[in-house]
């Protein structure tokens, strides 16, 4: 397999460079076209701000926006942490006891399929705003962690499991030395999805909260700027949200790669 990959699977150096260069060219071209369109047609900033205006707004409003960014990131992080710990813990519990799984799994699904935007207003009634926002992020993000971890724990090689049985491994040993390592790639995959989703959950909850109370996150800024027709600031906040999402994904992908690079197929393509 390894002997064939240079011929079949591995892109050449030029091809690999193109994977980075092409999107950058498209991005730059898009920005230039946007800027020209706005300037040539004289479109007012409250309809469509030019990229240059957005960047200037970002700099001008940095004090407000950076505060909001920190708020949203904190919410996302709390939601993500809760989802990771909760999802993995619940999956381990399911794995230990079929009865617990049968009892609780349907509710995990219900929580997952009910749109969070519909739950958020209710949560905001019953919970303190900051708590409600974190809970929303948790609800959206925890299911992929739960289902991926469950899948991982159930994907243990049958012969390896037999080997552990042959050598009289205790349930704790089997969990620690066999099931968790075998599930690790799946867990990391779940966390990668959960990172992006907890940002979405935080944003959804902030928007729902924004109409009700005094929020200060980025999504709240977007809603607020919309009411005030401060469109450049809307775009600036949106830009920050996008960047936050990209950074979260990048960090989690990097962590996953570093953890798995010695052994897992998913991490081998890049450095091998």
């Amino acid at each position, binding site marked *: 397999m390894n002997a064939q990959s240079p011929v079949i699977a591995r892109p050449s150096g030029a091809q690999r460079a193109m994977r980075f260069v092409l999107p950058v060219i498209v991005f730059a071209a898009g920005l230039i076209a946007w800027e020209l369109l706005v300037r040539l047609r004289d479109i007012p900033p409250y309809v469509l701000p030019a990229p240059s205006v957005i960047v200037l707004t970002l700099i001008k409003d940095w004090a407000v926006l950076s505060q909001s960014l920190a708020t949203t990131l904190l919410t996302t992080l709390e939601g993500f942490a809760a989802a990771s710990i909760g999802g993995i813990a619940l999956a381990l519990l399911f794995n230990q006891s079929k009865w617990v799984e049968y009892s609780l799994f349907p509710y995990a699904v219900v929580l997952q399929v009910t749109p969070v935007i519909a739950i958020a207003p209710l949560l905001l009634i019953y919970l303190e705003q900051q708590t409600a926002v974190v809970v929303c992020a948790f609800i959206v993000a925890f299911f992929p962690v739960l289902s991926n971890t469950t899948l991982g724990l159930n994907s243990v*090689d049958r*012969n*390896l499991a*037999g*080997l*552990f*049985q*042959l*050598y*009289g*491994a205790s349930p704790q*040993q089997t969990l620690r*030395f*066999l099931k968790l*390592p*075998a599930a*690790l790639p799946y867990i990391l995959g779940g966390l990668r999805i959960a990172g992006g989703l907890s940002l979405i959950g935080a944003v959804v909850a902030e928007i729902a909260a924004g109409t009700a109370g005094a929020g200060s996150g980025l999504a709240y800024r977007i809603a607020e700027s919309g009411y005030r027709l401060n469109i450049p600031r809307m775009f600036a906040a949106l830009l920050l949200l996008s960047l936050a999402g990209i950074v979260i994904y990048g960090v989690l992908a990097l962590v996953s790669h570093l953890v798995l690079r*010695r*052994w*897992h197929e998913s991490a*081998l393509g890049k450095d091998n």
Partner: protein
Amino acid sequence: MPRHDQRAMVERKTSSAADTGLTRLAVSLRGVTKTYDNGVMALGPFDLAVRKGEFISLLGPSGCGKSTVLRLIAELGAPTSGTVRVARHQAGMQTGQIPPGHGIGFVFQEPTLMPWANIRENVRLPLKLGGIAKAEGRNRADAALASVGLAEFADAYPRELSGGMKMRVSLARALVTDPDILLMDEPFAALDEITRFRLNNDLLALWRSLRKTVIFVTHSVFESVYLSQRVVVMTGRPGRTQADIRIETVEPRGEEFRTSTAYSDYCRRVSAALAPSYSGQSTL
């Protein structure tokens, strides 16, 4: 060597306590049947007696229950009826102290290595599960790796090794507990013939120096004749003994045996015994 003396002592102790029939037997199966939950009768009734230090092959068509026999001996499953007796003990240990499975080494058809652990840790696994200290476990793992010629790969990961090397690691892992009985379930079936020949020779050399009881399951007539002192040919499902053929030749065997007329005569006999199970004229 003091370790061997101790083993002999333990042996006497267990054999006097246990069934006297096991004195010279490592494994004894009597009237064993196995019916799976889905109603498929995989085995039996099947009898097998394996002497201590003997190298026997189980040969038969797919689905004849060869692997089931190994799993029953390893206590990875219980027989539906009949008795399975295994003389379990380990060098340098009192019978009461033997951790489960430690009298037996198992080599699967696949290398069955943990991809996330390096080679040394893979080989150390049975010792780790048995609660043996890390430093001692590492030394023993390194010694086992050296015995299969992979000493310098201790820090590598499974994916960095070829199929044949992975199989050697699997063998080292089975040997690391110094078991009396080695169960091998078509271990070389997935390898190319040249690699398999080499591993056959290495296995024979190991068996000559360590004198383990080996029960070797295979699809290959040639492999069974080349390796074993005795070939037990099984019928199709449910597996029974079709023939029990002793392979007698000049020991130690080497490559010259593979090209000798005695070898081809045995192959012919074993093939003939196997014929009813694939030509449809089952003797059942």
